[in-house]
């Protein structure tokens, strides 16, 4: 009896060992982007921007032209690329430290100018690469390396809902928040990622952003399974899922 192959690696996703921790969401997010690029047939005209953080090595997994840029500056770099190459598909891949802390000005102004780029925003509620410090997106009560008694709104402020902030800008044409916590949620995330790229391919005339809530079992100090559970039950309270714009 012949066996039918029902699941395989998508070509733009490189065949190599991962450096990500067990249970990390980055690998899933990378795959969703790779599948999208292959399904839309845009590998030959796509340029990706890797952030500073755990996913700085995104170019090791995504087989497209890529650049690695300073912490938070990806939307400015993307602006320089897209304005000089309107026929290319430009995407940035940014974590919460990168996009919601040091790069807040760059993402808000790229959206404000309506730059025709696609932003994949990974929110895992911590700074991963530097050792699990508080991010602007750390939820209240969450213990991190720099909020050792749990995040307290009185001294550390509230989780920053940057997607909600961006959604009110006319230049942001599509903003959606999804979760990489279960097969059902990941399928929704895939649709959102693909839509965000399609808008750019179709020249829809503005910035598209998908925020992906993503597990970080290592710095949440949880097992991968528990992390998925915490993401859905706790993190989505601070960051409600759904389409915010477009």
């Amino acid at each position, binding site marked *: 009896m012949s066996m039918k192959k029902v699941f395989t690696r998508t070509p733009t996703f490189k065949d190599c060992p991962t450096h990500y921790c067990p249970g990390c969401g980055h690998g899933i997010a990378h795959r969703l982007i790779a599948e999208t690029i292959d399904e839309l047939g845009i590998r030959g005209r796509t340029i990706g921007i890797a952030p500073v953080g755990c996913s700085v090595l995104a170019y090791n997994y995504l087989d497209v*032209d890529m650049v690695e840029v*300073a912490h938070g500056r990806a939307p*400015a770099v993307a602006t*320089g690329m897209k304005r000089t190459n309107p026929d290319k598909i430009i995407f940035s891949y940014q974590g919460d430290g990168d996009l919601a802390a040091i790069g807040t*000005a760059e993402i808000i102004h790229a959206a404000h100018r309506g730059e025709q780029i696609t932003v994949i925003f990974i929110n895992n509620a911590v700074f991963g690469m530097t050792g699990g410090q508080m991010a602007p997106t750390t939820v209240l009560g969450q213990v991190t390396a720099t909020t050792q008694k749990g995040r307290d709104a009185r001294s550390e402020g509230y989780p920053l809902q940057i997607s909600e902030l961006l959604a009110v800008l006319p230049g942001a044409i599509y903003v959606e928040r999804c979760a990489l916590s279960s097969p059902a949620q990941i399928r929704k995330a895939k649709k959102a990622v693909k839509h965000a790229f399609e808008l750019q391919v179709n020249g829809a005339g503005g910035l598209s952003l998908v925020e992906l809530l993503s597990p970080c079992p290592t710095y949440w100090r949880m097992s991968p399974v528990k992390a998925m559970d915490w993401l859905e039950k706790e993190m989505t309270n601070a960051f409600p899922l759904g389409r915010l714009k477009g």
Partner: protein
Amino acid sequence: MNERVLMCGNEALAEAAIQAGCDAYFGYPITPQNEITAYMSRRMPEENRVFVQSESELAAINMVFGASATGKRAMTSSSSPGISLMQEGISYLAGAELPAVVVNVMRGGPGLGNIAPSQGDYFQATRGGGHGDYRTIVLGPSSVQELVDCMPLAFDLADQYRMPVVVLADGILGQMMEPVVLPKTRDEGRGTRDEGRASRIRVLPTKDWALTGANGRPQNIIRSLWLVEGVLEKLNYKLRDKYEQIQKNEVLCEQYEVSDAEIVVVAYGIAARIVRGAVDKAREEGLKVGWIRPITLWPFPTEQISRAAEEFRVFFVVEMSLGQMVEDVKLAVAGKAPVLFYGRPGGGVPTVEEILDKIKQLTLPTKNR
């Protein structure tokens, strides 16, 4: 465009950049260089090229980084405090080996300083104001015409060596109007005439490293992170080799009446213009004075100054700062002759008479010798 036109330095350098094939300009307003941004906002769209007013200098230099990574000729301009903000991006450009042109129309500092002309950013420009082991080529023009001539050269040097090139001007050069001849439009993929070096044509390398979409080829990656042990060290040595080539091949400087001079005045940029006037007057009065004017501030004309120091004479450095280039002159002279200094910081501009007076004071001990 070959006739003489009257333009202020800021607008003239902007037009020269356009003629030099600048594909994209990104900038943020700051005095005294606002004429560049305004001029580019009008002219770049006329040429179907890119102009973006960025939200900050940080963003501007990173927009340059993005455009440059795709193989385009990109530039930004600013003045001292803005250039400080760009240092992060300049370091990344150096690390990623990306070409870029950065114009600094210097003003007084430190801090917010003032908007008067200054040469206080020499250290920042020539020492690499950002982090890490890198160099930038620094051009120090002293007239509006030279500012214009610097622009195609800056783009060519940036493309040839894949690194940021800084054009170090100041508030006077940016603001003052002089008649200039603008350069002819350059041919694609070929350098322009470099008048200072026997009119040779630069042949520029193809940008096969550029991010253009991996269409029918393996992916290109532009990066400055090298975690594996020894890899960054190798890159640093590669950069060193490149910098040594530049030191060997790209030094530009002008000398005047040095052969019989007892006093050699060393100055760059607008200060050199003032020095020229003072030296001419000193010669009229029979004083044996000459000058050396570095045009490339890095690579510095160390050899030229060192040769001049082989005969006994006094070196007199004049800067619109408390003394920055004077350190490079001292390194070049290497103790073979006295190196004296006169500077005006904080936006102070010395007059011809002021410099002449200082030169006369210096001649007294040499006459008694």
